Protein backbone atom coordinates (compact mmCIF):
# COMPACT_ATOMS: atom_id res chain seq x y z
CA UNK A 1 0.00 0.00 0.00
CA UNK A 2 1.07 3.57 -0.53
CA UNK A 3 1.30 5.80 2.50
CA UNK A 4 0.30 9.43 2.92
CA UNK A 5 3.25 11.78 2.80
CA UNK A 6 2.33 13.47 6.10
CA UNK A 7 3.82 11.82 9.16
CA UNK A 8 3.40 14.78 11.48
CA UNK A 9 1.00 14.75 14.45
CA UNK A 10 -2.38 16.14 13.39
CA UNK A 11 -3.04 19.82 13.97
CA UNK A 12 -6.39 20.98 15.31
CA UNK A 13 -7.98 20.93 11.88
CA UNK A 14 -6.23 18.05 10.18
CA UNK A 15 -8.17 14.79 9.85
CA UNK A 16 -8.03 12.28 12.66
CA UNK A 17 -8.96 9.64 10.11
CA UNK A 18 -8.04 9.91 6.46
CA UNK A 19 -8.61 6.95 4.17
CA UNK A 20 -7.99 7.25 0.44
CA UNK A 21 -9.00 4.44 -1.94
CA UNK A 22 -8.35 1.98 0.85
CA UNK A 23 -8.73 -1.73 0.16
CA UNK A 24 -8.60 -4.76 2.42
CA UNK A 25 -8.51 -8.43 1.49
CA UNK A 26 -8.88 -11.08 4.17
CA UNK A 27 -7.55 -14.54 3.25
CA UNK A 28 -7.58 -13.46 -0.39
CA UNK A 29 -11.21 -12.28 -0.30
CA UNK A 30 -11.74 -8.57 -0.97
CA UNK A 31 -13.69 -7.07 1.93
CA UNK A 32 -13.11 -3.35 1.42
CA UNK A 33 -12.58 -1.73 -1.94
CA UNK A 34 -11.55 1.85 -2.72
CA UNK A 35 -12.98 3.22 0.52
CA UNK A 36 -12.73 6.95 1.10
CA UNK A 37 -13.34 8.50 4.45
CA UNK A 38 -12.23 11.60 6.29
CA UNK A 39 -12.97 12.54 9.86
CA UNK A 40 -11.85 15.81 11.43
CA UNK A 41 -11.77 16.83 15.09
CA UNK A 42 -15.26 17.63 16.33
CA UNK A 43 -16.94 15.48 13.68
CA UNK A 44 -19.10 12.43 14.04
CA UNK A 45 -19.75 10.12 11.13
CA UNK A 46 -22.03 7.12 10.73
CA UNK A 47 -21.55 4.30 8.27
CA UNK A 48 -24.72 2.39 7.46
CA UNK A 49 -25.06 -0.75 5.41
CA UNK A 50 -26.43 -4.27 5.31
CA UNK A 51 -24.76 -7.28 6.94
CA UNK A 52 -21.54 -8.23 5.17
CA UNK A 53 -21.04 -4.78 3.67
CA UNK A 54 -17.66 -4.46 5.38
CA UNK A 55 -18.62 -2.03 8.16
CA UNK A 56 -16.93 -3.90 10.99
CA UNK A 57 -13.78 -4.42 8.90
CA UNK A 58 -13.71 -0.70 8.15
CA UNK A 59 -13.92 -0.03 11.88
CA UNK A 60 -11.16 -2.58 12.54
CA UNK A 61 -8.93 -0.80 10.01
CA UNK A 62 -9.52 2.58 11.64
CA UNK A 63 -8.91 0.99 15.06
CA UNK A 64 -5.52 -0.13 13.60
CA UNK A 65 -6.32 -3.83 14.10
CA UNK A 66 -6.31 -4.67 10.38
CA UNK A 67 -3.64 -3.45 7.96
CA UNK A 68 -4.94 -2.35 4.56
CA UNK A 69 -3.77 -4.20 1.47
CA UNK A 70 -4.23 -1.26 -0.90
CA UNK A 71 -4.69 2.49 -1.02
CA UNK A 72 -3.54 4.75 1.77
CA UNK A 73 -4.72 5.77 5.18
CA UNK A 74 -3.71 7.54 8.34
CA UNK A 75 -5.20 7.49 11.81
CA UNK A 76 -4.38 10.26 14.30
CA UNK A 77 -1.72 11.47 11.90
CA UNK A 78 0.09 8.14 11.69
CA UNK A 79 0.04 6.15 8.45
CA UNK A 80 -1.66 2.76 8.74
CA UNK A 81 0.92 -0.03 8.56
CA UNK A 82 3.60 2.20 10.06
CA UNK A 83 5.64 0.78 12.96
CA UNK A 84 4.45 3.79 14.99
CA UNK A 85 0.81 2.70 14.84
CA UNK A 86 0.82 0.90 18.26
CA UNK A 87 1.72 4.23 19.90
CA UNK A 88 -1.57 5.85 18.82
CA UNK A 89 -3.77 3.02 20.09
CA UNK A 90 -4.07 4.45 23.59
CA UNK A 91 -5.92 7.42 22.07
CA UNK A 92 -8.55 5.22 20.42
CA UNK A 93 -11.70 4.01 22.13
CA UNK A 94 -13.41 1.04 20.51
CA UNK A 95 -16.49 -0.96 21.32
CA UNK A 96 -17.06 -3.97 19.10
CA UNK A 97 -20.27 -5.93 18.75
CA UNK A 98 -19.01 -8.47 21.30
CA UNK A 99 -18.21 -7.04 24.75
CA UNK A 100 -14.52 -7.33 25.63
CA UNK A 101 -15.12 -8.39 29.24
CA UNK A 102 -13.61 -11.31 31.14
CA UNK A 103 -16.53 -13.54 32.15
CA UNK A 104 -14.87 -14.78 35.37
CA UNK A 105 -14.19 -11.25 36.62
CA UNK A 106 -16.82 -8.95 38.09
CA UNK A 107 -17.85 -5.85 36.17
CA UNK A 108 -15.95 -3.77 38.73
CA UNK A 109 -12.78 -5.85 38.29
CA UNK A 110 -13.07 -5.67 34.51
CA UNK A 111 -13.34 -1.90 34.54
CA UNK A 112 -10.69 -1.50 37.24
CA UNK A 113 -8.25 -3.52 35.10
CA UNK A 114 -8.83 -1.26 32.08
CA UNK A 115 -8.54 1.82 34.29
CA UNK A 116 -5.30 0.76 35.98
CA UNK A 117 -3.66 -0.35 32.74
CA UNK A 118 -4.39 3.02 31.18
CA UNK A 119 -2.94 4.82 34.18
CA UNK A 120 -6.09 5.72 36.15
CA UNK A 121 -6.90 4.67 39.69
CA UNK A 122 -9.03 1.53 40.07
CA UNK A 123 -11.84 3.69 41.50
CA UNK A 124 -12.27 5.23 38.05
CA UNK A 125 -13.80 1.91 37.00
CA UNK A 126 -16.48 2.27 39.68
CA UNK A 127 -17.16 5.86 38.62
CA UNK A 128 -17.77 5.00 34.97
CA UNK A 129 -19.93 2.03 35.93
CA UNK A 130 -22.11 4.49 37.86
CA UNK A 131 -22.28 6.70 34.77
CA UNK A 132 -23.84 3.87 32.76
CA UNK A 133 -26.27 2.93 35.53
CA UNK A 134 -24.37 -0.10 36.82
CA UNK A 135 -23.16 1.22 40.18
CA UNK A 136 -24.94 -1.59 42.01
CA UNK A 137 -23.69 -4.30 39.67
CA UNK A 138 -19.94 -3.81 40.17
CA UNK A 139 -19.66 -7.01 42.22
CA UNK A 140 -21.44 -9.25 39.73
CA UNK A 141 -19.37 -11.52 37.52
CA UNK A 142 -19.66 -10.60 33.83
CA UNK A 143 -20.77 -14.15 32.94
CA UNK A 144 -23.82 -13.73 35.21
CA UNK A 145 -24.85 -10.39 33.72
CA UNK A 146 -27.42 -9.92 30.99
CA UNK A 147 -26.18 -9.04 27.50
CA UNK A 148 -27.46 -5.50 27.99
CA UNK A 149 -25.46 -5.07 31.22
CA UNK A 150 -22.33 -6.35 29.49
CA UNK A 151 -22.84 -3.91 26.63
CA UNK A 152 -23.26 -1.04 29.07
CA UNK A 153 -20.10 -2.05 30.91
CA UNK A 154 -18.25 -2.28 27.60
CA UNK A 155 -19.33 1.25 26.70
CA UNK A 156 -18.26 2.37 30.18
CA UNK A 157 -14.69 1.34 29.24
CA UNK A 158 -14.66 4.19 26.74
CA UNK A 159 -15.51 6.68 29.48
CA UNK A 160 -12.44 5.79 31.58
CA UNK A 161 -10.10 8.05 29.64
CA UNK A 162 -10.65 10.67 26.96
CA UNK A 163 -9.98 8.92 23.66
CA UNK A 164 -9.59 11.32 20.73
CA UNK A 165 -11.17 8.84 18.39
CA UNK A 166 -14.18 6.76 19.42
CA UNK A 167 -15.26 3.82 17.27
CA UNK A 168 -18.60 2.15 17.88
CA UNK A 169 -19.83 -1.02 16.19
CA UNK A 170 -23.63 -1.40 16.43
CA UNK A 171 -23.50 0.36 19.82
CA UNK A 172 -27.18 -0.16 20.66
CA UNK A 173 -27.23 -3.89 19.92
CA UNK A 174 -28.65 -5.66 22.97
CA UNK A 175 -29.38 -2.39 24.76
CA UNK A 176 -32.80 -1.18 25.84
CA UNK A 177 -34.21 2.30 25.14
CA UNK A 178 -33.01 3.55 28.54
CA UNK A 179 -29.43 3.01 27.44
CA UNK A 180 -29.66 5.28 24.37
CA UNK A 181 -28.56 8.38 26.39
CA UNK A 182 -25.32 6.55 27.25
CA UNK A 183 -24.37 6.35 23.59
CA UNK A 184 -25.46 9.93 23.06
CA UNK A 185 -23.43 11.11 26.07
CA UNK A 186 -20.34 9.23 24.86
CA UNK A 187 -20.54 10.78 21.41
CA UNK A 188 -21.25 14.33 22.65
CA UNK A 189 -18.47 14.11 25.25
CA UNK A 190 -15.92 13.07 22.61
CA UNK A 191 -17.00 15.81 20.20
CA UNK A 192 -16.97 18.44 22.95
CA UNK A 193 -13.36 17.55 23.75
CA UNK A 194 -12.28 17.95 20.14
CA UNK A 195 -12.27 14.26 19.27
CA UNK A 196 -14.13 12.42 16.54
CA UNK A 197 -16.60 9.55 16.44
CA UNK A 198 -17.10 6.86 13.82
CA UNK A 199 -20.12 4.67 14.32
CA UNK A 200 -21.34 1.78 12.16
CA UNK A 201 -24.78 0.23 12.12
CA UNK A 202 -27.19 -1.48 9.75
CA UNK A 203 -29.80 1.10 10.78
CA UNK A 204 -29.23 4.44 9.00
CA UNK A 205 -32.18 6.10 10.75
CA UNK A 206 -30.75 5.34 14.18
CA UNK A 207 -27.31 6.54 13.14
CA UNK A 208 -28.65 9.87 11.95
CA UNK A 209 -29.96 10.50 15.47
CA UNK A 210 -26.47 10.12 16.92
CA UNK A 211 -24.02 11.52 14.37
CA UNK A 212 -23.66 14.59 12.13
CA UNK A 213 -23.64 12.76 8.81
CA UNK A 214 -24.18 9.24 7.54
CA UNK A 215 -22.58 7.54 4.56
CA UNK A 216 -23.71 4.27 3.11
CA UNK A 217 -21.58 1.22 2.61
CA UNK A 218 -22.32 -1.59 0.20
CA UNK A 219 -20.14 -4.45 -1.06
CA UNK A 220 -17.08 -3.03 0.67
CA UNK A 221 -17.42 0.46 -0.81
CA UNK A 222 -18.44 3.72 0.83
CA UNK A 223 -20.77 5.85 -1.27
Amino acid at each position, binding site marked *: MTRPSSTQPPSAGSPLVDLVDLSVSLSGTPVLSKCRLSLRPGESLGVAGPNGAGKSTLLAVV*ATFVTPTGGSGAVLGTPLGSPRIPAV*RAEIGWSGHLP*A*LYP*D*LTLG*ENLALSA*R*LSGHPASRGQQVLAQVGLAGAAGIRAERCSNGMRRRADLARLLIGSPRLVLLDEPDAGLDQDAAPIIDHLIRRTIRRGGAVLCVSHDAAKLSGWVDRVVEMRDGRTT
Partner: protein
Amino acid sequence: MRAGFWRSAGLIALRDLRVELRSGEALTVVFPFAVVASWIAPLATNASPLLLRDLAAPVYWLITLLFGMMIVLRQTALETRAQRRALALTGLDPAARFAGRSGASGLVLAAVAGTLILPVIIFYDYRPPSGATLMAPVIILAAAGLAMLGTLAGDVTIGLRARTSLAPLLMAPLAVPLVMGAAQSLESLVAGKSIITWVLALVIADLGLAAAGVMSARALEEISL
Protein backbone atom coordinates in the same frame (compact mmCIF):
# COMPACT_ATOMS: atom_id res chain seq x y z
CA MET B 1 0.05 8.24 32.27
CA ARG B 2 -0.06 4.55 31.36
CA ALA B 3 0.98 1.85 33.81
CA GLY B 4 4.66 0.90 33.56
CA PHE B 5 6.04 -2.47 32.44
CA TRP B 6 6.12 -4.30 35.77
CA ARG B 7 2.87 -2.80 37.01
CA SER B 8 1.15 -3.85 33.77
CA ALA B 9 2.66 -7.33 33.99
CA GLY B 10 1.47 -7.60 37.59
CA LEU B 11 -2.07 -6.53 36.65
CA ILE B 12 -2.22 -9.11 33.85
CA ALA B 13 -0.86 -11.83 36.16
CA LEU B 14 -3.42 -10.90 38.81
CA ARG B 15 -6.19 -11.07 36.22
CA ASP B 16 -5.13 -14.56 35.10
CA LEU B 17 -4.75 -15.83 38.67
CA ARG B 18 -8.21 -14.53 39.57
CA VAL B 19 -9.70 -16.22 36.53
CA GLU B 20 -7.88 -19.46 37.41
CA LEU B 21 -8.95 -19.30 41.02
CA ARG B 22 -12.60 -18.77 40.10
CA SER B 23 -12.78 -21.36 37.33
CA GLY B 24 -10.75 -23.74 39.52
CA GLU B 25 -9.89 -25.82 36.47
CA ALA B 26 -6.25 -26.47 37.38
CA LEU B 27 -7.22 -27.63 40.85
CA THR B 28 -10.44 -29.50 40.17
CA VAL B 29 -9.86 -30.94 36.71
CA VAL B 30 -6.21 -30.99 35.66
CA PHE B 31 -4.69 -31.94 39.02
CA PRO B 32 -6.99 -34.94 39.71
CA PHE B 33 -6.36 -36.22 36.19
CA ALA B 34 -2.62 -35.86 36.72
CA VAL B 35 -2.92 -37.87 39.95
CA VAL B 36 -4.85 -40.60 38.13
CA ALA B 37 -2.24 -40.60 35.34
CA SER B 38 0.56 -41.02 37.87
CA TRP B 39 -1.31 -44.01 39.30
CA ILE B 40 -1.59 -45.79 35.92
CA ALA B 41 1.99 -47.10 35.75
CA PRO B 42 1.96 -48.91 39.13
CA LEU B 43 -1.59 -50.12 38.51
CA ALA B 44 -1.05 -51.41 34.97
CA THR B 45 2.44 -52.88 35.18
CA ASN B 46 2.34 -54.62 38.55
CA ALA B 47 6.01 -53.71 38.66
CA SER B 48 8.33 -54.54 41.51
CA PRO B 49 8.78 -51.80 44.15
CA LEU B 50 12.38 -51.38 43.02
CA LEU B 51 11.39 -50.79 39.39
CA LEU B 52 8.62 -48.45 40.48
CA ARG B 53 11.10 -46.34 42.42
CA ASP B 54 13.27 -46.11 39.30
CA LEU B 55 10.23 -45.04 37.28
CA ALA B 56 9.10 -42.41 39.78
CA ALA B 57 11.25 -39.49 38.60
CA PRO B 58 10.74 -39.92 34.82
CA VAL B 59 6.99 -40.44 35.30
CA TYR B 60 6.82 -37.33 37.51
CA TRP B 61 8.49 -35.12 34.90
CA LEU B 62 6.49 -36.62 32.06
CA ILE B 63 3.22 -35.94 33.87
CA THR B 64 4.38 -32.46 34.84
CA LEU B 65 5.14 -31.76 31.18
CA LEU B 66 1.87 -33.15 29.80
CA PHE B 67 -0.46 -31.64 32.36
CA GLY B 68 1.62 -28.48 32.56
CA MET B 69 1.04 -28.03 28.83
CA MET B 70 -2.69 -28.38 29.44
CA ILE B 71 -2.65 -25.67 32.12
CA VAL B 72 -0.52 -23.21 30.20
CA LEU B 73 -2.16 -23.66 26.80
CA ARG B 74 -5.64 -23.48 28.31
CA GLN B 75 -4.76 -20.14 29.89
CA THR B 76 -3.53 -18.75 26.57
CA ALA B 77 -6.68 -19.96 24.80
CA LEU B 78 -9.01 -18.14 27.19
CA GLU B 79 -8.53 -14.67 25.74
CA THR B 80 -10.91 -13.67 22.95
CA ARG B 81 -9.99 -11.40 20.06
CA ALA B 82 -12.24 -8.66 21.48
CA GLN B 83 -10.39 -8.86 24.81
CA ARG B 84 -6.99 -8.72 23.11
CA ARG B 85 -8.10 -5.69 21.09
CA ALA B 86 -9.41 -3.89 24.17
CA LEU B 87 -6.11 -4.57 25.98
CA ALA B 88 -4.08 -3.23 23.05
CA LEU B 89 -6.09 0.01 23.17
CA THR B 90 -5.16 0.58 26.80
CA GLY B 91 -1.61 1.07 25.50
CA LEU B 92 -0.46 -2.12 27.24
CA ASP B 93 3.07 -3.12 26.27
CA PRO B 94 2.77 -6.58 24.63
CA ALA B 95 5.98 -7.64 26.37
CA ALA B 96 4.36 -6.84 29.74
CA ARG B 97 1.36 -8.90 28.69
CA PHE B 98 3.70 -11.81 27.90
CA ALA B 99 5.48 -11.42 31.23
CA GLY B 100 2.22 -11.25 33.19
CA ARG B 101 0.61 -14.21 31.51
CA SER B 102 3.75 -16.32 31.80
CA GLY B 103 4.13 -15.33 35.43
CA ALA B 104 0.58 -16.40 36.31
CA SER B 105 0.86 -19.68 34.38
CA GLY B 106 4.24 -20.35 35.97
CA LEU B 107 2.82 -19.88 39.48
CA VAL B 108 -0.10 -22.25 38.85
CA LEU B 109 2.18 -24.77 37.19
CA ALA B 110 4.75 -24.63 40.00
CA ALA B 111 1.98 -25.21 42.55
CA VAL B 112 0.60 -28.19 40.62
CA ALA B 113 4.09 -29.64 39.99
CA GLY B 114 5.01 -29.21 43.65
CA THR B 115 1.85 -30.94 44.84
CA LEU B 116 2.24 -33.79 42.33
CA ILE B 117 5.27 -34.98 44.29
CA LEU B 118 2.91 -36.36 46.95
CA PRO B 119 1.07 -38.94 44.78
CA VAL B 120 4.40 -39.98 43.25
CA ILE B 121 5.83 -40.61 46.73
CA ILE B 122 2.71 -42.60 47.66
CA PHE B 123 2.15 -44.64 44.48
CA TYR B 124 5.83 -45.32 43.72
CA ASP B 125 7.02 -45.72 47.28
CA TYR B 126 9.55 -43.10 46.32
CA ARG B 127 12.14 -42.00 48.86
CA PRO B 128 13.24 -38.43 48.06
CA PRO B 129 17.02 -38.12 48.27
CA SER B 130 18.61 -36.07 51.02
CA GLY B 131 18.62 -32.40 50.17
CA ALA B 132 15.41 -32.84 48.14
CA THR B 133 14.35 -29.32 49.14
CA LEU B 134 16.97 -28.17 46.62
CA MET B 135 14.48 -29.34 44.02
CA ALA B 136 12.19 -26.39 44.86
CA PRO B 137 14.13 -23.89 42.74
CA VAL B 138 14.43 -26.53 40.01
CA ILE B 139 10.65 -26.98 39.92
CA ILE B 140 10.15 -23.19 39.88
CA LEU B 141 12.65 -22.72 37.05
CA ALA B 142 11.15 -25.58 35.02
CA ALA B 143 7.62 -24.25 35.61
CA ALA B 144 8.66 -20.74 34.56
CA GLY B 145 10.26 -22.10 31.39
CA LEU B 146 7.25 -24.24 30.52
CA ALA B 147 4.94 -21.29 31.18
CA MET B 148 6.88 -18.98 28.87
CA LEU B 149 7.14 -21.66 26.20
CA GLY B 150 3.39 -22.37 26.43
CA THR B 151 2.52 -18.68 26.26
CA LEU B 152 4.70 -18.33 23.17
CA ALA B 153 3.26 -21.46 21.54
CA GLY B 154 -0.27 -20.25 22.33
CA ASP B 155 0.43 -16.84 20.80
CA VAL B 156 2.11 -18.27 17.70
CA THR B 157 -0.89 -20.50 16.97
CA ILE B 158 -3.61 -17.90 17.71
CA GLY B 159 -6.31 -17.91 15.07
CA LEU B 160 -5.26 -21.22 13.52
CA ARG B 161 -7.93 -23.88 13.16
CA ALA B 162 -5.52 -26.63 14.22
CA ARG B 163 -4.47 -24.64 17.27
CA THR B 164 -5.47 -27.21 19.89
CA SER B 165 -3.25 -29.87 18.34
CA LEU B 166 -0.57 -27.62 16.89
CA ALA B 167 0.29 -25.73 20.08
CA PRO B 168 1.21 -28.88 22.10
CA LEU B 169 3.09 -30.26 19.07
CA LEU B 170 5.10 -27.07 18.98
CA MET B 171 5.61 -26.94 22.72
CA ALA B 172 6.51 -30.55 23.55
CA PRO B 173 9.80 -30.89 21.61
CA LEU B 174 10.94 -27.43 22.67
CA ALA B 175 10.25 -28.34 26.30
CA VAL B 176 12.71 -31.26 26.17
CA PRO B 177 15.72 -29.20 27.38
CA LEU B 178 13.69 -27.91 30.32
CA VAL B 179 12.43 -31.32 31.35
CA MET B 180 15.88 -32.83 30.80
CA GLY B 181 17.50 -30.15 32.94
CA ALA B 182 14.97 -30.69 35.72
CA ALA B 183 15.21 -34.51 35.54
CA GLN B 184 19.02 -34.43 35.50
CA SER B 185 19.04 -32.17 38.56
CA LEU B 186 17.16 -34.85 40.46
CA GLU B 187 19.48 -37.56 39.12
CA SER B 188 22.49 -35.55 40.30
CA LEU B 189 20.89 -35.13 43.70
CA VAL B 190 20.31 -38.89 43.97
CA ALA B 191 23.91 -39.55 42.95
CA GLY B 192 25.11 -37.06 45.57
CA LYS B 193 26.51 -34.68 42.94
CA SER B 194 26.12 -30.92 42.65
CA ILE B 195 23.06 -29.75 40.73
CA ILE B 196 24.40 -26.29 40.02
CA THR B 197 25.26 -27.07 36.38
CA TRP B 198 21.70 -28.16 35.64
CA VAL B 199 20.22 -25.24 37.54
CA LEU B 200 22.37 -22.90 35.46
CA ALA B 201 21.23 -24.68 32.31
CA LEU B 202 17.62 -24.09 33.36
CA VAL B 203 18.34 -20.43 34.12
CA ILE B 204 19.90 -20.00 30.66
CA ALA B 205 16.94 -21.73 29.00
CA ASP B 206 14.52 -19.48 30.92
CA LEU B 207 16.45 -16.35 29.98
CA GLY B 208 16.44 -17.43 26.33
CA LEU B 209 12.67 -17.98 26.42
CA ALA B 210 12.11 -14.67 28.20
CA ALA B 211 14.15 -12.87 25.54
CA ALA B 212 12.28 -14.65 22.74
CA GLY B 213 8.92 -13.83 24.34
CA VAL B 214 9.73 -10.17 24.91
CA MET B 215 11.24 -9.65 21.46
CA SER B 216 8.42 -11.37 19.58
CA ALA B 217 5.59 -9.95 21.71
CA ARG B 218 4.83 -6.94 19.49
CA ALA B 219 4.82 -8.95 16.24
CA LEU B 220 2.67 -11.70 17.76
CA GLU B 221 0.22 -9.14 19.12
CA GLU B 222 -0.21 -7.57 15.70
CA ILE B 223 -1.08 -11.00 14.26
CA SER B 224 -3.54 -11.71 17.04
CA LEU B 225 -5.61 -8.50 16.75
